[in-house]
């Protein structure tokens, strides 16, 4: 994949995220469920690290996960 293609894809993604996503979502006080531990994108970082390491050692792919977002959205 060329660098130009990647840059374009990312730019479009950001634009879509900011505009298309601006109507989606909940009010700040409606995040009780999202604040729960089991609703975080990574519930257990140590377990996620263990799995990442096992599969990295045994397969040709690795990672992919990100960080940030979700949660109670406080402050």
């Amino acid at each position, binding site marked *: 994949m060329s660098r130009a293609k990647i840059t374009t894809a990312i730019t479009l993604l950001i634009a879509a995220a900011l505009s298309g996503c601006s109507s989606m979502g909940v009010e*700040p006080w409606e995040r*009780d469920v999202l604040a729960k531990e089991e609703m975080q994108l990574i519930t257990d970082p140590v377990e996620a690290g263990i799995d990442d390491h096992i599969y990295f050692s045994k397969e040709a792919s690795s990672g992919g996960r990100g960080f940030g977002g979700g949660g109670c*959205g*406080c402050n």
Partner: protein
Amino acid sequence: MNQRFEIRARRVVSIIAVLFVGLLGSASSIATEPAFDVTEYRGKVVVVDFWASWCVPCRRSFPWWNEMHRKYGDDGLVIVGVNMDAHADKAQDFLNEFPAEFRIVYDPKGDLGKQYGVEAMPTTFVIDRNGEIVANHLGFKVKKQDEYEQVLKETLDAGKD
């Protein structure tokens, strides 16, 4: 005399409204009446603080609001904590751990939140003695406590003749 009666009547109506909303809980589908009416506090400085049981910074703010209540209550500071939990029992668990020395009202449907335009949890509005919103802060930062207190002091001092 008339004025005092009016205030008392409003207070009674507000309490009934709060009880009404509180009793019905989330099953209520009745058209909403604001859980409290800020105009009943005309002449005082009112802090309206929107909080919820699942909000970690709210937990940090309660002891400090209690301190402000103790310090400035006699100067005319009124603190109203507006709880946004969908279920009052969650709010009660929180209050058992962090008792509030100030008034708590319940807004499970979020009507007050929408009315005030709450954009973060917690959010605090400071209303001066004339009923105008003079300040608001989004979130609660322990490091900004002195700053917040300064705003309260200034608002309390202003409009005092």
